[in-house]
């Protein structure tokens, strides 16, 4: 059995999805869709396009002619029926627009609206392309499941969000404003888990033919079971889901207790209307620094442990996303595998 695509392709698809969705989340954060997520608004622009470019650069090494006759790469723009050609166009455009956007963010210049929306559109297209590349291959029945592109997009989004959260943790001093990113992340991981169950349920039960069944079972029970169950499902999905769930519950509790604090403060003295508004807005949307400290004093865990848990979860999500692509690429058997029974 010949499996031509290896690690480099897995990294390429992984970085493509991660970089593009990091860009997308910065766009969403900037437009305010993630609530008060100020810290995430620029990082994605900085890391998005370079990461995608890096992945595309790696692809060159995987091409048989990448180092022999690299000028042939220009021909990759010529077949409009090939998803790979579409991908080359999408990636080139995204890298270009992403770099322009990063430059504007860096120099703090206002970005034209078209550039913002073109960037977001191309970012989403890049995520979709990484899944479509595999989905259109009918001769690999396990790839040819309509949920595969959806899985790739959802997984790309979660790795992108994790990557900007990690970078934000180190670059943004002081309070980290993640806004609704935590909830978004929680939802993405849950969706990924559900889609994985659907794909593997469908394939493993034989709903997509015997070869897809063989591929799925190879991952579920065969030689790839360990990385799948421990790495992807356990470390990459269940553990971060658990951590995010706890964080979200704690955040909700904090908001509630902050509300109570505001109420009691109000009873002690009569603040002016402006003050009430300020404190309300602050407590509703965010957990101000002093309240976090207060909460730390109450809770048994120190503050550092909380952010470390999130940090590690984000790392685990990224690791899981990479593992997912490796598994899907490596474990996919071709139709000719069952020739002559």
């Amino acid at each position, binding site marked *: 059995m010949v499996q031509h695509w290896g690690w480099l392709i897995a990294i390429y698809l992984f970085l493509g999805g991660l970089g593009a969705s990091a860009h997308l989340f910065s766009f969403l954060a900037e437009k305010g869709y993630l609530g008060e997520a100020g810290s995430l608004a620029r990082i994605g622009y900085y890391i998005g396009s370079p990461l995608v470019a890096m992945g595309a650069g790696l692809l060159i090494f995987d091409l048989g002619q990448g180092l022999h006759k690299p000028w042939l790469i220009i*021909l990759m723009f010529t077949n409009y029926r090939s998803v790979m050609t579409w991908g080359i166009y999408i990636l080139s455009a995204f890298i270009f627009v992403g770099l322009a956007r990063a430059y504007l963010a860096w120099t703090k210049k206002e970005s*034209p609206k078209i550039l913002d929306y073109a960037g977001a559109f191309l970012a989403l297209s890049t995520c979709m392309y990484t899944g479509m590349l595999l989905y259109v291959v009918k001769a690999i029945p396990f790839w040819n499941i309509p949920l595969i592109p959806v899985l790739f997009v959802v997984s790309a989004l979660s790795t992108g969000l994790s990557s900007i959260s990690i970078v934000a943790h180190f670059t943004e001093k002081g309070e980290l404003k993640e806004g609704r990113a935590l909830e978004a992340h929680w939802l993405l991981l849950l969706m990924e888990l559900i889609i994985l169950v659907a794909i593997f349920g469908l394939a493993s039960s034989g709903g997509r033919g015997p070869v897809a069944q063989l591929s799925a079972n190879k991952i579920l029970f065969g030689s790839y079971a360990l990385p799948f169950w421990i790495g992807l499902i356990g470390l990459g999905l269940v553990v971060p889901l658990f951590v995010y769930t706890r964080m979200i519950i704690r955040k909700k509790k904090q908001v509630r207790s902050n509300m109570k604090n505001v109420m009691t403060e109000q009873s002690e003295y009569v603040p002016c209307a402006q003050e009430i508004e300020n404190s309300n807005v602050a407590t509703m949307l965010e957990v101000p620094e002093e309240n976090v400290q207060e909460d730390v004093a109450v809770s048994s865990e120190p503050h550092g442990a909380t952010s470390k848990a999130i940090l590690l979860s984000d790392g685990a999500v990224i690791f899981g996303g990479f593992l997912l692509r490796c598994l899907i690429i490596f474990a996919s058997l071709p139709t000719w595998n069952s020739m002559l*029974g």
Partner: protein
Amino acid sequence: MPKIGDLSLSRRLVLKTSAWVAAALVIGVPPARILLADSAPIAAVPVTKPDQKIQLGFLYDETKCIECWACATACKKANNWEEGVQWRKVFNSDSHSLSMSCNHCADPACLKVCPVTAYTKRKKDGIVIHNSKRCVGCGYCLYACPYHAPQFGETTGAISKCSFCYQRQDQGYDPVCVNACPVKALRYGDIETLKKEAGANASLILGMPSPEITRPSFVTIAKK
């Protein structure tokens, strides 16, 4: 509300972008043309089914095959296979055998996915030809083909596959594999004619991939 400043900036961007695109086209198209001209020996024609005259294909008769490998050996010699590459293979299991190369499909998946358009399908006879000079070695066709016809050569870093001996056919000779078969288990011709042979099964037996994927030009006569 779009501001005037916004508008002018975006117009500038549009102009800039189009300038870049134009520059890219100017830089990109001529080399592509030159490389395209390089591949001149093959009539570089897009697949247009209505004006395709006939579709050639293979017929494999399992009842006659003695698994002597003469077809594959002759092909290897005549076409100078690169190391590790097999244009034609003889599969065998306990009860079955099968000699297969490229099936020169009516709807070739290789041609559809190849980003560099290295594949062409001849109007004259439907032969699917791969031009190794154009091949960038991405391996996408390797995955797309349900029959594992395109083969990756590690030495050259390019794909190659059965060409149905089109140069030989153009000179009036048979493909070498057909010629080499001592028992006439392997034949070729207009696929519509071959399908009418007694016992011929166009829907392909022996656990082969569904013909729906690429509509292969291949029929088999299976052992009972």
